[in-house]
């Protein structure tokens, strides 16, 4: 198996993901860049997106920022980033880079859910944290319990989706 990210970063990610569940999801920045993987850094947009402009003109320079720095402006209620950044970018901003999930490889492969759980903790605990979300706890269901694959909703390299909506009218904002 591949290396696991270090535990501090892990905690930060768990924390972020939990609060993100409560935020609002508005417009997004999904533009599949030509991947210049070796240079991939969440904060340095141009490293991957090259010329495409990803941020508004008056946005502060992000190159030196980490996720904590983003949060000085982007709070829970104001300018929330929830759903605006692909999951992989969040990971990058808390120093969880490509290698930390995919290992050192030229051909990164899709991960299994064990990889998520290794850092983020058990899905049962997650379900406990999100138990008050309306209209229904997104992390447990009468069908699959807490066993559904994270990646059915929380994609890292493409826009996340709400798997429940194929049958239900659950209006979740999916980070």
């Amino acid at each position: 198996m591949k290396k696991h990210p270090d535990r501090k970063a892990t905690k930060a990610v768990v924390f972020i993901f939990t609060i993100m569940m409560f935020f609002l999801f508005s417009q997004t920045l999904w533009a599949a860049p030509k991947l210049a993987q070796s240079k991939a850094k969440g904060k340095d947009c141009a490293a991957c997106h090259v010329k495409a402009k990803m941020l508004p003109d008056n946005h502060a320079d992000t190159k030196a920022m980490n996720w904590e720095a983003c949060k000085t402006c982007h709070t829970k209620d104001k300018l929330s980033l929830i759903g605006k950044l692909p999951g992989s970018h969040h990971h990058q901003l808390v120093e969880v880079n490509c290698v930390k999930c995919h290992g050192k490889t030229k051909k990164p492969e899709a991960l299994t859910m064990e990889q998520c759980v290794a850092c983020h903790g058990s899905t049962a605990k997650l379900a406990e944290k999100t138990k008050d979300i309306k209209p229904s706890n997104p992390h447990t269901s009468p069908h699959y319990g807490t066993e559904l694959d994270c990646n059915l909703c929380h994609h890292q390299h493409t826009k996340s989706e709400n798997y429940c909506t194929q049958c239900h009218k659950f209006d979740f904002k999916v980070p």
Partner: protein
Amino acid sequence: MKKDDTKEKTLSRRNFLKTTGAAAVAAMAVGNLGMPAKYAQAAGDALPKKWDETYDVVVIGSGFAGLAAAIEAKNAGASVAIIEKMPTHGGNSIINGGDFCAPGTKLQQENGIPDSPELMLKDMLRAGLYLNHPENAKIVAYGAKDALEWTESYLGVKYVKIGFHGGHSVKRAHGMLNQTGAELVNKELAKVKELGIKIQLRTKLVKFISNKDGRIIGIEVRKDYKFPDEKSGKTAFLKAKRAIVLGSGGFSQDIKLRQIQDPRLTDKFGSTNQPGATGEALLAACIAGAMDVQMDWIQLGPWTSPDEKGFGFVPLFCEPLVGNGLMINPKTGKRFFKETGNRKERADAIILMGNPAIIMGDSYAVNKNVVPHAVQKGMEIGAIKKFDTLEDLAKNYDIPLDVFLKEIARWNSFVEKKKDDDFDCMIFKDTRPTATAPFYAARLWPKVHHTMGGLVIDKNAQVMGFDFKPVKGLFAAGEVSGGVHGAVRLGGVAIADCLVFGRVAGKSAAAEKPWG
């Protein structure tokens, strides 16, 4: 024209179908044009250069039927793989309402309900308009109790309630814990894992591969398939030394195929089914020589609501209420049909009416019969509503009040004497007049729910071909098969069908002589 003639004769059924496309397959299959046997004979496929994986038995579909088959095949000594095209297991079975009809069980006895397999069979045949293949229907009616006990003793499934479904003579629906088929599917899955059987998700059956005798010897699949992207995934070949069990479910979500069978069922009708309930696996079997039957008997659920998505909560509210409360046409304020009638009768009556019906019950009926969870969730979504008075209820749905109140009084008089003079609705021993506030109500509009038709199977779940001979190496069970239910599948009998024939199919597949 001589030349064309000879050409036509050498055109195998397989090639013919390939060139004319799936719609034609379906159309022809339905019409059952009586293909001469020599055309029905599968011509044999070009064999794959290499089989990627080999098993004794390959099961397609991870619902009730497929999982039951896998368990039995494994326990009979076969090596088994299960493939499933969706990213999650369980198909329609995991969103199912968890009612399992079986006659003469302990739970019925405890509740003082006399019942017998004869009576269940009689109910199935009457509802099925006697189009049921009687031998198969009988196997289900007579095997249901044993199958139910197997799920209890071998899988550990819990049944907590005995309920009624329209069209049955008695209460024989054994309600699973939490009112969901997930209770059964997940316990089947746990057993599957315990037995060491692997289930391959996102793996779609594309085609059956037969040898030159027409025997099915394996399948072509797409691995890493991302429903519904037909271009996704990679081709692989799975060899089945003994047999394939097809448990791919029904095609209620297949708008193209269902419209060929029943042109009324356009995209204007929603469905209660999971999005992957499509017919390509069934059609692939037909292309490989399997015969289909009664494909145009497609069932609409009369208890679904236009005010929520999919199956939702209203069916769980409506079904326990029939016979305890009444169904009203809001335009007239009157009842219009026997509430305890079967699904087809009721759905047809609502469609004919042309507007949604109202199902309603008072607090006594609702509290006694409906699980609180269903009422609460249905109310949160807004599909079920609560009213302090009958006047409020009438106002909300624009029901002419005078007629409505008279109709309630009339119904209540039927309840008192336990006989409905208007529509002969069943009235239960514990039914009380609709009088105790608050009152609960929901709108009803049918959705596509079940496809009775499918592949022809014999008593061993062996799939039959257009030449009336077995399609060697192919077994089928569950909703993909046809014949058990005839024109109408009664509530709670699908699970019985899936479990009884799923287990039969697994045993048969494991007992098949290996071809290589």
